[in-house]
C-alpha cells in the first residue's frame, strides 16, 4: 500500500512574526474562482458608481480681472504659468500652483482680443485685432482682421498678407505639425486654409453658420475642429473638406472656443450656454459637461499641456480651473492604488455597454436652463426628422434624396 495524505505545514502559510506581511498563496485555477463574469460585472458596476461619487472636477477659481476674460494662453515651457487678457485691456500672468496673479499689465486701451506666447516662453504677444497666433518654430506670427497678415518679429510691416474675398476674419491658427499651414475662420461662414510658403489661400469650406474658432489636432496634422454658431462642432479632415469626420452636438448655444488635449484624443469646448464640454474626437456625444452656478458665458478655454487640467475664462471676470478627468485622484498614488485604478479602468471599459452601467456612467446633473433647452431642441429635432420621413414616404421613390447628418451642414467647398 502506498499512501500520501495532503499534509500542510502551517508554518509555510502563517507569518512568523507580527511584523511580517501575511502570506497569500495564489492558485489561478478557474474552478477555484467560480462566477468570474458576474463578479467582474459587479466590480465594474461598483467602480462606475464610485467614479460618479468621486467626480468633483472643480478645483479653483482665479479672480482679479475687472472685466470679462477674453483670451487665455498657455506658457510653452512652464506648466504653472498662464496668461489671460480681459476686455478692459488688462493682461494678467497667473501662477496655477499658488493660484495667484503674479503680474498685471495694462496692455491696451480696448479689448485684448488675442494673446499668444512665443515658442521659447520668453515673451508674449497681445492684439487688438480679432486674433493672433505665433509660429511654432520660427520668429513669425500671424494676425487677422480684414486679411491674414504674417509678421516678422523684427519688422514693422507684415511680410505677407493673404485674403480670399472681403470679410472680417475672426481667428487664425498655425498648424503645430506642418508649421507652414494656417487655418482661419471668417464671418461669412467659411473656414479658409492657407499655405505660408506660397503666400496664397489653399481652399475653403462654407458651412451653414459662422465658425467662431478652429483648433488643430496636435497629433494628426490634417485634422482640425471648428466651433460653430449652430451649437455644433465639426471635425474636418483637411484633405476632404466636403464631409466632416465627425459632427459633435451636445451644446445648446453657440460654441465660442475649442482646444485640443495634448494627446489629440479629446478636446474641450466652451459655449455661450454657460458650460464647457469634453468630447472624444471620434464620438459625436460629449463625455463630460462642467458647469457651476456662477459661471456665465464661457468665452475661452484651454487644456493644459500635462493633459490633467482645463482652464476656462468667462464673462463674469473669473478663470476657472477644472480637472480633465472628473474623478481622478490628485497627488502621488501608491502602487496598490495605481494597480486598483488600472484594474477598475479596464473593468469599466469591458462592461461599458451594459445598460445598467451605461446609464450610471452617462448620468450628469445639468442646470435647469440647459436641461429645458435640450428637451426643447429634442422636440424640434424630432419634428424635423418626422417631416423628413413623411416627405420620403409620400414622394416618388428616388425623388427625395437622404442627406446624411454630416453633410447636411456643408454648403460648398471651394478650391
Amino acid at each position, binding site marked *: 500500500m502506498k499512501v*500520501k*495524505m495532503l499534509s500542510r505545514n502551517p508554518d509555510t502559510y502563517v507569518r512568523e512574526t507580527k511584523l511580517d506581511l501575511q502570506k497569500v498563496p495564489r492558485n489561478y485555477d478557474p474552478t477555484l474562482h467560480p462566477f468570474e463574469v458576474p463578479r467582474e460585472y459587479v466590480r465594474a458596476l*461598483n467602480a462606475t458608481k464610485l467614479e460618479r461619487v468621486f467626480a468633483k472636477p472643480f478645483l479653483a477659481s482665479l479672480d482679479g480681472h475687472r472685466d470679462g476674460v477674453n483670451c487665455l494662453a498657455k506658457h510653452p515651457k512652464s506648466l504653472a504659468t498662464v496668461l489671460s487678457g480681459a476686455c478692459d485691456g488688462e493682461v494678467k500672468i497667473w501662477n496655477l500652483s499658488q493660484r495667484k496673479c503674479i503680474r498685471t499689465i495694462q496692455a491696451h486701451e480696448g479689448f485684448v482680443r488675442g494673446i499668444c506666447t512665443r515658442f521659447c516662453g520668453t515673451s508674449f504677444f497681445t492684439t487688438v485685432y480679432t486674433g493672433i497666433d505665433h509660429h511654432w518654430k520660427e520668429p513669425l506670427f500671424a494676425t487677422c482682421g480684414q486679411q491674414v497678415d504674417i509678421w516678422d518679429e523684427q519688422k514693422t510691416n507684415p511680410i505677407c498678407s493673404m485674403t480670399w474675398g472681403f470679410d472680417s476674419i475672426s481667428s487664425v491658427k498655425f498648424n503645430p505639425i506642418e508649421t507652414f499651414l494656417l487655418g482661419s475662420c471668417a464671418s461669412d461662414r467659411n473656414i479658409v486654409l492657407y499655405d505660408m510658403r506660397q503666400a496664397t489661400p489653399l481652399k475653403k469650406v462654407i458651412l451653414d453658420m459662422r465658425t467662431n474658432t478652429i483648433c488643430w489636432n496636435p497629433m494628426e496634422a490634417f485634422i482640425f475642429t471648428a466651433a460653430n454658431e449652430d451649437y455644433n462642432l465639426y471635425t474636418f479632415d483637411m484633405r476632404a473638406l466636403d464631409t466632416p469626420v465627425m459632427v459633435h452636438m451636445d451644446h445648446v448655444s453657440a460654441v465660442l472656443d475649442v482646444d485640443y488635449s495634448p494627446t489629440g484624443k479629446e478636446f474641450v469646448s466652451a459655449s455661450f450656454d454657460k458650460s464647457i464640454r469634453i468630447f472624444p474626437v471620434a464620438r459625436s456625444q460629449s463625455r463630460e459637461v462642467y458647469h457651476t452656478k456662477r459661471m456665465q458665458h464661457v468665452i475661452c478655454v484651454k487644456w493644459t499641456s500635462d493633459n490633467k487640467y482645463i482652464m476656462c475664462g468667462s464673462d463674469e471676470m473669473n478663470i476657472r480651473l477644472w480637472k480633465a478627468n472628473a474623478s481622478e485622484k490628485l497627488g502621488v498614488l501608491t502602487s496598490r492604488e495605481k494597480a486598483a485604478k488600472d484594474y477598475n479602468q479596464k473593468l469599466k471599459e469591458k462592461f461599458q455597454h451594459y445598460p445598467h452601467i451605461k446609464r450610471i456612467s452617462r448620468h450628469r446633473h445639468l442646470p435647469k436652463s440647459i436641461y429645458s433647452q435640450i428637451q426643447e431642441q429634442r422636440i424640434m429635432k424630432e419634428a424635423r426628422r418626422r417631416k423628413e420621413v413623411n416627405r420620403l414616404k409620400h414622394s416618388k421613390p428616388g425623388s427625395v434624396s437622404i442627406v446624411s447628418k454630416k453633410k447636411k451642414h456643408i454648403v460648398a467647398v471651394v478650391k
Partner: protein
Amino acid sequence: METAPKLGRDVPPKKDKLQAKRKKPRRYWEEETAQSAAGASPGPPSNKKRNQELRPQRPKNTHILKKSRISKKLQVPKKPRERKNPESQRSLSGAQDPFPGPAPVPVDVVQKFCRIDKSKKLPRCRSKTRNRLKVAETEEEETSVTAARSELLLAEEPGFLEGEDGEDTAKILQADIVEAVDIASAAKHFDLNLRQFGPYRVNYSRTGRHLAFGGRRGHVAALDWVTKKLMCEINVMEAVRDIRFLHSEALLAVAQNRWLYIYDNQGIELHCIRRCDRVTRLEFLPFHFLLATASETGFLTYLDVSVGKIVAALNARAGRLDVMTQNPYNAVIHLGHSNGTVSLWSPAVKEPLVKILCHRGGVRAVAVDSTGTYMATSGLDHQLKIFDLRGTYQPLRARTLPQGAGHLAFSQRGLLAAGMGDVVNIWAGHGKASLPSLEQPYLTHRLSGPVHGLQFCPFEDVLGLGHSGGITSMLVPGSAEPNFDGLESNPYRSRKQRQEWEVKALLEKVPAELICLDPRALAEVDVISLEQKKKERIERLGYDPEAKTPFQPKPKQKGRSSTASLVKRKRKVMDKEHRDKVRQSLEQQQQQQEQQQQQQHKQEKAKPMRARPSALDRFVR
C-alpha cells in the same frame, strides 16, 4: 513527474559530445573556463553543424504549445542571428544557454486556463470590431500561457492511495491508513461518540477549517476541527433538520422543527426567521449571499443574508421537499422529488429551468461536482446514476446498489461518496474532476450507525460523516484540492484577513437575478435584442441606414473593359447562384415525377394481382 526521467535520459549524450570537443585547440574563453571550473560550464559548440544537431533535441522531451505566439516569435529570429555571427549567443564566460527561448508550456494546462471557445467562429461584423475581437483573443491566449506558467509555483501535491500489485484499495481499512500516514494526518481521523442525540447532520465551512453538526435531538455544536477547539455547544431543545455555515464561520443557520434560526459562533441566537418554516434542507450560495431553504410545505425560499430579505419564494408544486443540493459552478439549486424527477431552480425564474426524469420511484439524494459537469443521483429504485449537466442531461454511468444510497457527495477533485445504511463507499475517476467509475469502489468504510449526512472537507483529505452514533472524520487520500487561493478561501487566514475578505466579498455580492444555467452568458453578445433594436431603428428612421447601396455603373474610363461589359459580367456571377438553384429544383421535379410514375406503374401492376375489385377500392387514395 513524467518529464523528469526523460530529461535525465537526454542529458548524458550531450556531455559526451562536449567532452569530445574539448580536445580541439582551445579558444581564449575556453581556457578561462577550464582553469576556473573544469567541466562546470559547457563550452560553445565549435561549428554550426553541431549546433544544429543539438537544437532539434529540445522539442522531443517536452511538447511545446505550438500555437502560442511566444514560442513562434523566438524560433524565427534565431536563424538569421546565427548566420551573421555564430558567436553572438555566447557570453564572455563561454557558457551557453542550454535551453534558449521561453520555457515550454504543456498544452493541457494552458487549456485549463483558456476562457475563449475557439471552436466558435468569429461572428460576421465590421472589420474594426473583428480586429478588436482578434486582439482580445490573442491577449487571452497570452494570459492563459502566463497563468499556465504560474502553475509551477504551486507548493502542494495531491494525495493518493495505491494498492501494491493487484491489492484492492477498497479493502484497506481506515486503521491501516492512519498507521501509514504521518502524525498530523493521522490526527485528522477521529470519531465522536454521541449516541444520545441521534443522527447528525454535518457541515464544513468554506475554508474547511471549521465543522458544525446538529443532532436530531437538538444538539448543535461548532468546532475548529483541526485544533479540536470547541467554539460553541448548545441544545436547542427542538429537532434539528439541517445545519449550515453562512459565508464565514461566525454565522450558523440551523433548520429546526418549526422555524429557521441563525446563531453566531458563541451559540447566541441572532435571528429567528419565521418566514421560513418547517425547513428540511439548507444550502448557502456564498457568492450571492443567499440561503436557499427547502421546506415541507413545498416551497423553495431564497433568503438574502446580507440584507435579511427574502428574494424569492418558489412553489415547486411537488409536495414535501427534502432532497436539495446546489451546483457550485452556476449556483442553480437542484431539487429531488418523489416522482423521480430532479428540477433545477433559479431565483430569477418562477418555473424550473430544467426537469430531468432520473429514476423510477422517488429521488433520495442528489450531488453535483465542483466543475458543474456531473450530477449524481440515487433513487428508491436502488440505482445510482451520473448525469451530464452540459446541456444533454443524459445518464453517463449507472449501477444498481444493493441498498441504494441515501446520501451523496462530490469532493473537490471529483471523488463520489455514497452513504448506504451504515456503509460508505467512495468511487474515483482518473485525474482531477473526471467522471468517477462506478465499478470498483476506491474506499469503503463501515460505521457504527446509519449515515445521516456526509460532506467532503474542502482543502483537506477528509470526509465528514454524521450518523446515528455521532460524527466520524474519515481519511480519503486524494479527495481535496491541494493548493488553495489565499484571496478566495484561506484555511490559515487571520482574523484581520477574514474581516478584509468579508468586506470585499460583500462589495462584490452577485445579484440573485444573474443566476442562470451558464454563468458566462453575461459576457456573450445578446444577439436577439440587438436584432430587435436594429428593426426598431429602421422603423423609426423609415429606411435602413446600414443597407448597402445597390451597384451603380461608373462612367466609362480608359481601359479595355467597358462598364457595360463589367456590369454584364457582374450580373452573370450574380445570376449564377440563381441559375444553379433553378437547375437543382428542376432536377428534383423530374426525379419526383419519375418516382410518381414508377409508383403508378407498381400500383397498376399490383391491382390485377387481386382477383376481384373490392368495393372498398373507392376509398383508396
